[in-house]
């Protein structure tokens, strides 16, 4: 009996030793590992996480709500997702997940159309056929976006189509415009080029949409039990992001080395397309990763309007924890 205790004690000691050697983190992406997700791969490949004593495993996801569920249930420790989705989750009953850093300080949603379609500003979509993916987070904001530009849903003809079908539909002229994230622009360009057409993107951020987009999430369990690990992770993640902004091609190469399915040229273009969402006057003013209270409130107001929630349904401040960001 005594012997067995000694064994358990030894095993526990060994376990605590190995955990202090490197903290393992399961990092949940909100979508497939496309070029826009390259920064975290660069962090792994360049050893930024290792320098902080972290061993990071990256898992591809199937949408922001999927990522929030996985982080909330403990299937992952940290991850990315749209903060709008987190606000909706909170308004619908809550998930034990908090945003610890903003990644996009501008919303990525945009109208994609082709040159010569007659759509050159958002209000021009009136009377046109527009396709969107059925589960896109943009769909909830879209009616509010139209109202803000003096239109409403009755003025446009909406179609639902699966994500892979959107670019072909635009290329063949089945629709006049589609809704998508600016990060997918390069992929659309490639498809449209084959049809001899030229892509025109109208980012909603230029037509009144403001607020935070993609953010970094942590489970409340993680925040309570391993706060130091989050601080170290953010330090390395920001370092990786800055390096990727400097050199998108290196980030894409890091992605390619871990995700062989990725296409180097396309991934570079995708990362480059996401840079203005991360590095812009807002991030220059508040610092990278910040949640500025006013802008955070604006983010929630868009969600509340889109989903018809009362404005006081949740307090967006309760969904963020700024304590892990590097001190300025």
């Amino acid at each position: 009996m005594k012997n067995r205790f000694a064994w358990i004690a030894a095993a526990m000691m060994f376990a605590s030793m190995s955990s202090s050697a490197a903290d393992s983190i399961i990092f949940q992406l909100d979508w497939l590992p496309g070029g826009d997700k390259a920064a975290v791969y660069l962090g792994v490949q360049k050893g930024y996480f290792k320098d902080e004593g972290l061993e990071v495993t990256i898992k591809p996801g199937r949408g922001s709500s999927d990522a929030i569920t996985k982080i909330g249930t403990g299937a992952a420790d940290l991850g990315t997702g749209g903060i709008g989705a987190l606000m909706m989750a909170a308004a619908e009953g809550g998930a034990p997940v908090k945003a610890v850093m903003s990644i996009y300080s501008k919303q990525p949603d945009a109208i994609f159309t082709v040159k010569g379609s007659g759509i050159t500003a958002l209000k021009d979509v009136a009377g046109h056929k527009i396709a969107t993916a059925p589960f896109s987070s943009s769909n909830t904001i879209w009616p509010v976006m139209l109202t803000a530009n003096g239109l409403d849903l009755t003025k446009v003809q909406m179609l639902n189509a699966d994500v892979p079908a959107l670019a072909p539909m635009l290329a063949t002229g089945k629709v006049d415009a589609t809704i998508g994230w600016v990060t997918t622009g390069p992929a659309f360009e490639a498809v449209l080029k084959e049809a001899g057409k030229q892509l025109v993107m109208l980012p909603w951020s230029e037509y009144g949409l403001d607020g935070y987009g993609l953010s970094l999430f942590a489970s409340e369990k993680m925040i309570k039990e391993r706060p130091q690990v989050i601080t170290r992770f953010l330090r390395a993640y920001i370092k990786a992001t800055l390096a990727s902004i400097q050199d998108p091609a290196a980030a894409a190469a890091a992605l390619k080395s871990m995700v062989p399915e990725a296409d180097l040229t396309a991934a570079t273009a995708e990362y480059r397309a996401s840079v203005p969402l991360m590095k812009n006057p807002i991030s220059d003013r508040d610092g990278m990763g910040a949640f500025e209270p006013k802008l955070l409130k604006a983010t929630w107001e868009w969600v509340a309007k889109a989903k018809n929630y009362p404005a006081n349904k949740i307090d967006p401040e309760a969904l963020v924890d700024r304590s892990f960001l590097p001190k300025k």
Partner: protein
Amino acid sequence: MHKWLDRAAPVLTFISILAIWETLCRLLAVPSFLLPTPSAIVIAAFAVDIGQWWAHLAATLEVTLIGFVVSILVSVPIAIALTNSRFLSRTLLPLLVVVQSTPIVAVAPIIVVTLGAGLLPRVVITFLITLFPLVISTATGLQATPPELIELSRSLRASRAREYWQIRLPFAVPYIFSALKVGITLSVIGAVIAEFVAAEKGLGYMILFSTSSFKVPQAFAALAILVTASLLLFQLVVQLQRRFFLWSIPASR
């Protein structure tokens, strides 16, 4: 000459379909994002490293085969229980029908969230898709035994175990094998559905990854490999039956 033509017929059909496909795509200038030509698919297939294809194929086969074997191991005892006991058949069968009528695609995300992101949820999804036809066919086969034989075995005081092992199960073999043929193709479908929902490897994941980055020829290449694998697995079941249960194949073929 006639015999030769007869043997080559399937291959010739296949080749001519590919030729028509290629010509039509080229003549009508169908863009590759709508329907790629067979040659574009072959080029896309070779653009991907062979080791990578193998890794994806191996991942899908692993899920397919584990799910398939588990559903065989579970379905035979269930089928025996169903034929053996009126009570079990009244309680278990409705449950099986519920499982079968639930669209797995709809519950797959729930399974993944509950069981984590490893191999287990994928095997469970495959298993759930394959189970029902196996149980039903096996049970039908077990019941198809001529009643005189059962009466004879009972009058000779053969044990229940012998009744099943030596009379009922052999009679069920043709039924089981026709279920296995359906089951193996369903297992492949199950594995792909599971990979659509949660996976970082596998041909289903490859198809999802390719279509979401608009690499349609690459998606078709993955699809072609998947279909080939499915055909080979089907043939494997056919050959197993031929080799070990030749008597169970009707003589007319």
